[in-house]
């Protein structure tokens, strides 16, 4: 855990907060611009960046030393991707009826 660092984490907390608010504003504005197929990609990229910021800095995954914890987090992401990727590989390759 990163609790024992000498420097105050407050600056980091407020920077992450600012970045998250900026990300929200960017998603909102980007949705109004016609980017074609990239609209969804941009929205998901911003959302994933925001989720990573929350997980790494607010949930203290950055600096977590326990290997078991890392295993749980990586397997969670792996199985979620498995669920989404295999389902979409099925439905995505079907011809429209």
């Amino acid at each position, binding site marked *: *855990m990163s*609790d024992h660092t000498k420097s105050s*984490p*407050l600056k980091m*907390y*407020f920077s*992450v*907060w600012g970045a*998250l*608010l900026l990300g*929200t504003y960017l*998603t*909102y504005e980007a*949705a*109004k*611009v*016609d980017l074609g197929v990239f*609209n969804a990609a941009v*929205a*998901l990229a*911003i*959302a994933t960046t*925001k*989720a990573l910021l*929350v*997980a790494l800095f*607010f*949930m203290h995954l950055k600096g977590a030393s*326990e290997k*078991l*914890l890392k295993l*749980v*987090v990586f*397997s*969670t992401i792996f*199985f*979620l991707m498995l*669920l*989404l990727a295999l*389902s*979409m590989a099925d*439905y*995505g390759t079907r011809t429209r009826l």
Partner: protein
Amino acid sequence: MPDSQTSTMAATHAHNPALLHHFATEEQQRDSANLGMWIFLATEVMFFGGLFCAYLIYRRLYFGDFAAASKSIDAALGGTNTAVLICSSLTVVLAIWAAQTARRTLLISMLVLTMLFGCVFLGIKAKEYKDKFDEHHVPGATFSFEHEQVPNAPEGVYANPRHAQIFFALYFIMTGLHALHMIVGLGIFSWLLWMSWKGRFTPEYHTPLEIGGLYWHFVDIVWIYLFPLLYLIDRHA
């Protein structure tokens, strides 16, 4: 009181009363609690993941209908709610920092502020739901979504109400389940507030705050994905 223990173990060291006897050290106890919470969150990810998967499949099939239905939701309210949740996540980490640095007043005010943001979120959500009820956009017998133009389609191309109904069903299930998690979170934070008020948390022991915080941040992350996926499918004119 540790000193009152006269067992053979007492000679080792005076330990924190919060340390349960089946753990060797406070650090081990905290790491175990943390790991348990992350495993719970893993099950929550798969739980919401199934819904996101259903959403992706139908969105791909009925993109135009989903876009039209998505456009009928108030994105400004959804955006405000995103900002409210982000602010509540900040107050959660500030509360934990306050506990780590033994600032009781700050700890309690940050917990109160977190719950306040949570209530604002639910209030805005209630307003959104009311609008949907008024517009007959709630799936069921009174559902109506007639002559709604599909965004970026030729004039007069209307959304299929049956397909739009699938969007609204997913909208209500996903945001409803998220709101339920918020209500549970408010319950957890009421308890944390009560414990903080009684002075149970110290710089050495504040694991419940950290674990409750993990839950709150997770619910925030779910919303971070729900907002663009449900509110902003096809907003450009």
